[in-house]
């Protein structure tokens, strides 16, 4: 018995000036944290914007929380249960951290003042900004501003949480805090996490989707993706020209990622990043050969 899917996209296409940002994508998500990986221009942001209901697809069906949001009422109903953090979010001038999240809470229909203020304090302390509520946003660092932006997405414990690069600019200490927050959110909600940081995906996600040029290259458990790199990552004393990628690690050895390791080479434990590199590389090679 499959769990009801929170998000379901069928044949979704979006074009910008003729080039497809998303090309007939079929995906479905349920509760838990799913990572969304892909190079720049792969369509990750477009995808999230469509799921967040701020962008309409050119073709295909989008089903959110069990229904298609094609009337204003259904749209509002869906938006009540989702939280969205865009990739580039600016802040209007003159707001404090508290003031801005309060403003967003009003937009999310928290009409009563006292419960709203309690909720604002709750999400700000979740992202560890409880002591900086009265600071002007213009006086906060980039990472702190990103956390304010994340806090507003967490208002109301949404069932669907869409995060586009939530940890950009956030320092490593705070990133741990954010991972805890997201991990807890993933226990109750459907979280889609689009990021460049494969470590975040490896740490948080059970499932990963890799997008490239508007198409889904991989959709499955993280461990399966990592497994595709088995036997293709090895350590050597010198860089290997035949490898796809090769770099010197801190220990002085060279880590090589490529086709089958040379016989007798010392195999290394593949990481998600290795698998991701290999996946994208494979695709590039295949399309080059076909052309």
């Amino acid at each position: 018995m499959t769990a009801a899917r929170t998000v379901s996209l069928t044949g979704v296409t979006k074009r910008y000036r003729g080039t497809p940002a998303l090309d007939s994508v079929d995906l479905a998500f349920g509760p838990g944290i799913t990572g969304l990986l892909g190079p720049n221009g792969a369509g990750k942001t477009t995808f999230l914007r469509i799921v967040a209901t701020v962008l309409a697809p050119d073709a295909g069906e989008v089903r959110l929380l069990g229904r298609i949001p094609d009337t204003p009422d259904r749209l509002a109903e869906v938006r009540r249960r989702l939280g969205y953090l865009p990739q580039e979010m600016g802040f209007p001038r003159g707001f404090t951290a508290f003031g801005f999240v309060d403003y967003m809470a009003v937009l999310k229909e928290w009409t009563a003042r006292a419960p709203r203020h309690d909720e604002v304090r709750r999400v700000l302390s979740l992202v560890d900004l409880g002591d900086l509520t009265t600071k002007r946003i213009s006086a906060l660092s980039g990472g702190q501003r990103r956390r304010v932006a994340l806090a507003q997405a967490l208002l109301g414990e949404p069932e669907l949480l869409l995060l586009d690069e939530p940890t950009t600019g956030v320092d490593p200490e705070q990133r741990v805090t954010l991972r805890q927050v997201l991990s807890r959110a993933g226990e109750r909600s459907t979280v889609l996490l689009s990021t460049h940081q494969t470590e975040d995906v490896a740490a948080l996600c059970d499932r990963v989707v890799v997008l490239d040029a508007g198409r889904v290259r991989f959709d499955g458990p993280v461990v399966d993706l990592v497994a595709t790199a088995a036997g293709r990552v090895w350590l050597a004393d010198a860089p290997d020209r035949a490898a796809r990628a090769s770099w010197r690690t801190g220990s002085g050895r060279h880590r090589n990622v490529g086709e089958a390791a040379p016989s007798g080479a010392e195999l290394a434990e593949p990481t998600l990043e290795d698998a991701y590199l290999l996946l994208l590389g494979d695709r590039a090679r295949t399309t080059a050969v076909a052309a």
Partner: protein
Amino acid sequence: MRAGQAQGDPELLTALAGGDLAAMRTLYDRHAPWLSARLTRRCNNPDAVADVLQDTFVALWQGAERWRGDGEVAAWLWGIAVHRLVSRLRGRREALVLPLEDLAAARPPEPSAEERVLLDVEFGDLGTALLRLSPEMRAVVQATVLDGLSTRQAARLLGIPANTVKTRLHRAKAHLRQDLAGGFA
């Protein structure tokens, strides 16, 4: 552990003016208890005292930069608080402060040695002279001289006409002048 435990009041005020709520929390922890007690001695309605305390610190948050950096922060805070109290009492019969009259009857006016030291430290010679004043005159002296209120504000606080305040203050000053000039054992 609250931030700024080791900081002095002036530093906290500067931080507060820059939007640091934790600094105000520390100031609140330091000053709210005695302010609340002192306000209660002038107005024994706990809700009114709570409101005045709230207004004082909200006013502080909005205007912390107005402190000129001279004198004690505590004195400045009391100034804000007592003026807020007086504004609140406009037209209302809430100020029931006249423990000065009730208690003076109950206790003998002779202070112990320990208490004499306090009087000396705070008021010097004036202390014992003040003891010889009637409670009504002392109340007026406390409101105008010690709390820094105007005649009209003192009248509102004590619930008496302004002219009465003026008369009593005049008489009190005359008594004190006489006492201090004459000297006492």
